[in-house]
């Protein structure tokens, strides 16, 4: 029974893929609009055997990770300070909550004018989009530190820096990683869209290039690569979380 449960998600995905292949091969829809999975798979294989295309994936990854890393550094700093300082929270909270819903992608033309059409404008936008979930989650975590732990540390004569390092940061870490898990796919989405809007390289550019060539199979292959990269990045974040905050491994009980 346990084995069946483990295989169930794969079975569902397999059934969907088989249904796709049957529908695509039925001839009901143009293959230019609805290509078969086998042709998409061929293009995926072609992607991974082309050094030029792998380089495009690397360019996209660099941009996504660059913006994400900057957002992580700034976001953790801001979130922790906001969580531990009423004054800073009062100053920045309205700014973050008031502008969270703003689609930052709409600001991309301005970013192009400020940072140019190269990688910098894309990294800057990824940074901005990733900053919000990281700041907000870190802020929530830093505010939520158990008071008993803080009082205990104070009673034992710990300095403010020691309390921050030994109590606040470890207690906030699960929230920080939750912010990372939200931010990582955001980074991939934003970088691909910016490359689709204005770029001469990267996976977003490849999507547009394939679309302009009416090669839906090739375009979907790039989408598969983007999805795979997003999945791997998420798994990397989960792995890092499990390693770094081993005491917080969650036991989930379904009732």
């Amino acid at each position, binding site marked *: 029974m346990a084995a069946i449960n483990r295989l169930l998600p794969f079975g569902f995905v397999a059934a969907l893929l088989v249904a796709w292949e049957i529908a695509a091969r039925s001839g009901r829809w143009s293959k230019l609009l609805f290509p078969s999975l086998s042709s998409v798979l061929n293009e995926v294989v072609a992607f991974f055997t082309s050094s030029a295309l792998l380089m495009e994936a690397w360019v996209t990854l660099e941009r996504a990770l660059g913006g994400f890393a900057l957002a992580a550094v700034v976001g953790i700093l801001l979130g922790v300070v906001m969580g531990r300082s009423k004054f800073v929270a009062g100053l920045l909270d309205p700014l973050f909550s008031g502008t969270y819903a703003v689609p930052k992608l709409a600001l991309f033309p301005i970013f192009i004018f400020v940072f140019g*059409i190269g990688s910098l404008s894309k990294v800057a936008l990824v940074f901005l989009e990733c900053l919000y979930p990281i700041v907000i989650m870190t802020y929530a975590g830093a505010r939520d530190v158990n008071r008993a732990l803080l009082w205990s540390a104070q009673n034992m004569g710990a300095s403010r820096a020691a309390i921050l390092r030994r109590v606040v940061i470890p207690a906030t870490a699960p929230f920080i990683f939750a912010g990372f898990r939200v931010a990582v796919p955001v980074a991939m989405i934003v970088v691909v869209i910016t490359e689709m809007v204005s770029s*001469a390289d990267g996976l977003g550019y490849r999507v*547009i290039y394939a679309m302009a060539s009416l090669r839906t199979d090739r375009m979907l292959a790039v989408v598969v690569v983007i999805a795979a990269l997003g999945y791997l990045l998420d798994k990397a974040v989960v792995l890092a979380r499990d390693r770094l905050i081993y005491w917080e491994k969650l036991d989930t009980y379904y009732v």
Partner: protein
Amino acid sequence: MARTLLFLTGILFLGNSLAAGPLIRLGRGFAAEEQLWLMSARPDLAPNQGKRYELKQILFQANPERFQAYLAGELDAGTAPGLAIIFGSAQGMDFKLVASICLEAAGKQYFTTQYMVKDDGPIKSVKDLKGGTIGVVGIKTATDLWARAGLLNAGLVPDQDTKVVPMAFPVIGDAVRTGKVSAGVFVEPFYSAEMAKGGLRKLFTATEAVGYDHELLDLFFSEKFLKANPDAVRAFLADYVAVTRYYLANTAQAKADLHKAGFVRTPLEIYLRNSDWKRTPDARVDVGSLEKLAVFMREKLQWLEKPVNVREMVDQSYLPTR
């Protein structure tokens, strides 16, 4: 009594639907298709409309979306640049190019797409674009093709020596002025607006880059629709040619009508002053220029994986005889 009424109503509906002719769902763009828009803005100029065919024009911002709608069966016909039709043909799309809309042509009386640089900038010739960037409106569009042709003419390798980057028409002027791109592509009405602001100078034109006059925009129909409704297509194209002639003879009035009908948003006084692309009064397609473009796309740009038989994708038999 009720049966008789029902019968008469049925006859009436049948009569109306037969009289109106089939509906042509036509995907259009947002630039340089004046005579086609005029068919909807001034239906009085198209006497067959409403009798032998009905026309519904649907606006699309870009070619891929228009082709996707066509492939999904939502369109019977559309407008597209010659090179987009070549791409579609290479991928086995079942359509025929039936008439020309406009051409990129040399000559002072015509507008041809311009590539411009900063007037006081360091780019004096195309060769100076080495290490720089050209702004175009889309990857694998006509503006991309001309940019690459211009670079190749100057001995530069596109993407390697000079980056070709897509950006929206409205921002290209400022992008060139602020040095974000070394050169950019300009079409009307942006060209006139940017020239009025000053500070930009021509580097090369589309016709100079390619070296000959060539088809810019064309009209295509699905083969299925052509086979099912040949008379409706003939009637539509007869109107189209008549409206094209009217447009060429009464350009100012036609432009004013299009502006009034909301097809054009540029201020009327600027729109009236803009020079126009070349439009042939008989709407005949310059097949030779498309053949040359197809060879260039395959051999110089490697944009086509296999040769395209351009003559096979063009069918001008539905146009009125000269």
